[in-house]
């Protein structure tokens, strides 16, 4: 099986450079506390950029030694959140090309046999495309395509872009000039091969396999088989995994953020990186969850609903900003984690002769802005409530999806509809035996010319807030027709609204 191996060397350092892309091309070194040896617990250089290496910075140095060797070196520290996000981004590079991907530290593998039709220019061009996709998500990767994971892994170490010829002979020829150190990390094996005078994979491939196995054991035999290009899927099977349901990007800050705008700036980076990963997989963001780490402790978790899947960073940032403005964090923020829910972009077949309606992403942003302005309970599609209370109204989420025309109603004439006062306004009403004769409210004082009613309605007897009302339609002397009711439980009068 043809397998692509994407290797991101020094993933921890790259995870920091992914967060701070302006540092790319400059001398940078990753400083981490050592976990073993005499300097246990002390920070040492563990990974260095090419520029820093050229200036003499090597792993194992202290920060002071690195600065002395290269005065302009940037000493960086990677947080677990950075590394985790970079690993997720690396996996997404694989998911951009294949539905199943096997993950290893700093590596992903995926089958590329079926990609010939999509990339007819050959495997070298495919490897280049994979590398470009890795660059889009902020990773500098080396890509190799070969028969089996083992050969692909070695080939990715040998060259930045490699397409190993198919078959064991092709693999053997490709591996032959490579040094032994590329075939194995086992120091004992390396020393043994050195003692035998075998320095390249070609020399190892020339060794008798059985004799090598007797002297070096199973690990040595494996290296010999690898050098001969015989290590295939049976020796190292492909163990693919499905993509995760949600995609996470995170950042741990070295400072506190007190205000919304700087926080939105931080979140912008997370959103951009998440969208780049989603775009590679042909997906969009259907929902956002933001977990803010607060200082000194505590979490602020907020879910930002999105009306329609979108890849528009500006829209998502606007939604986040509005949500933060509506409910600011209670304490300074020292970290943020963004969880994006992937979804397919809505495919809509537009009608040639009809308007498309509001664009889903713009509609989502508009509804969010309206919700921030007037409150989320006041924006949406009106809905009829199943109750006998006349004034009941509900707001349902608005999502314009269908633009199919509806049949015209039987009676297309205009009808007077009632304009509701919410809540009903308490008024004074003068009544005689036939009904109301005058009414006085906050902004209504009039004689009643004609009164139609009463229309009795009662309900919800099983609740404490039950109702029993006598409704009247009255034509008042100010020209309006009012709808009012008397609460039959306590005799008070209320103005429900007027016909208009």
């Amino acid at each position, binding site marked *: 099986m043809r397998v692509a191996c994407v290797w991101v060397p020094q993933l921890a350092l790259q995870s920091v450079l992914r967060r701070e892309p302006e540092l790319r091309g400059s001398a940078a070194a990753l400083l981490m506390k050592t976990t073993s040896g005499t300097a246990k617990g002390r920070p040492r250089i563990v990974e260095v950029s090419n520029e820093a290496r050229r200036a003499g910075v090597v792993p194992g140095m202290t920060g002071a030694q690195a600065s002395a060797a290269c005065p302009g070196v940037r000493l960086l520290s990677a947080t677990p959140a950075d590394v985790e996000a970079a690993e997720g981004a690396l996996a997404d590079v694989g998911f951009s090309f294949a539905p199943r991907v096997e993950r290893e530290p700093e590596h992903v593998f995926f089958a590329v046999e079926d990609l010939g039709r999509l990339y007819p220019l050959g495997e070298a061009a495919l490897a280049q495309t994979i590398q470009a996709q890795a660059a889009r998500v902020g990773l500098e990767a080396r890509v190799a395509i070969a028969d089996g994971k083992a050969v692909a892994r070695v080939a990715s170490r040998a060259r930045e872009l490699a397409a190993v010829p198919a078959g064991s002979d092709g693999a053997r020829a490709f591996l032959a000039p490579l040094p032994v150190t590329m075939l194995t990390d086992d120091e004992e094996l390396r020393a043994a091969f050195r003692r035998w005078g075998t320095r390249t994979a070609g020399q190892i491939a020339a060794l008798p396999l059985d004799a090598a196995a007797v002297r070096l054991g199973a690990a040595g035999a494996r290296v010999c088989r690898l050098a001969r290009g015989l290590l295939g899927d049976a020796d190292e099977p492909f163990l693919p995994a499905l993509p995760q349901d949600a995609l996470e990007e995170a950042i741990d800050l070295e400072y506190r953020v007190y205000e919304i705008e700087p926080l939105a700036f931080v979140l912008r980076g997370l959103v951009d990186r998440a969208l780049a990963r989603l775009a590679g997989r042909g997906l969009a963001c259907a929902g956002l969850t933001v977990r803010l780490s607060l200082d000194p402790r505590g979490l602020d978790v907020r879910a930002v609903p999105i009306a329609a899947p979108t890849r528009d960073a500006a829209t998502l940032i606007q939604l986040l900003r509005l949500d933060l403005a509506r409910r600011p964090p209670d304490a300074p923020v020292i970290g943020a984690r963004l969880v994006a829910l992937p979804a397919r972009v809505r495919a809509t077949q537009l009608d040639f002769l009809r308007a498309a309606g509001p664009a889903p992403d713009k*509609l989502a942003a508009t509804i969010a802005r309206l919700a921030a*302005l007037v409150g989320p309970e006041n924006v949406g599609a009106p809905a*009829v409530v199943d109750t006998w209370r006349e004034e009941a109204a509900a707001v349902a989420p608005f999502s314009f999806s269908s633009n199919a025309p*509806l*049949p015209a109603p039987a009676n297309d004439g*205009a009808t*007077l509809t009632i*304009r509701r006062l919410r809540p009903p306004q308490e008024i004074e009403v003068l009544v005689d035996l036939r009904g109301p004769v005058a009414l006085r409210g906050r902004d209504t004082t009039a004689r009643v010319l004609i009164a139609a009613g009463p229309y009795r309605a009662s309900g919800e007897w099983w609740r404490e807030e039950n109702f029993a009302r006598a409704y009247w339609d009255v034509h008042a002397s100010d020209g309006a027709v009012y709808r009012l009711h008397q609460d039959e439980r306590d005799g008070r009068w209320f103005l429900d609204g007027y016909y208009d």
Partner: protein
Amino acid sequence: MSALDEVLGGGWPRAALSEISGRRTTGRTAVVLAALARAARAGEAVALVDMGGALDPRAAAAAGLALPRLLWVRCAVGEALKAVDLVVSAGGFDVVALDLGDERPRVPTSAWIRLKHGAERQGTSVLVATPARAVGAFAAAAIELSAPTPRFLTDAGPPLLDGARVKVTCVRRLNRNLERESERSVASPRGARGDRGTASGSEPAPRQEGGELCAWLAFGCRS
């Protein structure tokens, strides 16, 4: 509503700001809902910015309005113009109505200009329902509803509200052709716009009263 269409010379203008003014029970809300219902039935998205939240969903549905296609924004006095501006700027809405209810907020001229330009840019018909004329010269069409005469059935016993008859007057109707003509003949003192309810010869000719087109609308009632 054919009488209203005749008064308007074919209906509400597209991509323009229009005004409906009238006091209580003059059918302002009915006219707005009819315009929204017609656009929603045609498959368009419509929006209502409702100051005070006076819309009765049950009555609106009974008036033929497809509720899922209506974006309903309930807001207070200070938020209405901002809300309608947001909706119009989003684009894609065929009709956006701003219902000012019984309020007469002080609206800066710049707000109407902005709304007018937004409507022109997005191709949206923006209807502003007010108790008294407020939009002024920024409206491409303006009607005034007055003299409501409620109709009660009294034949078979106690009275029953049956509907109302309302006088509708077109107080402003910008004829785009005339406007273009006037733009071409700026130098001419005779190039003034004839936008005050003038009807061209081919248009239906509702009754003229004092130089203004007017008609009577009859509203039913489904209370």
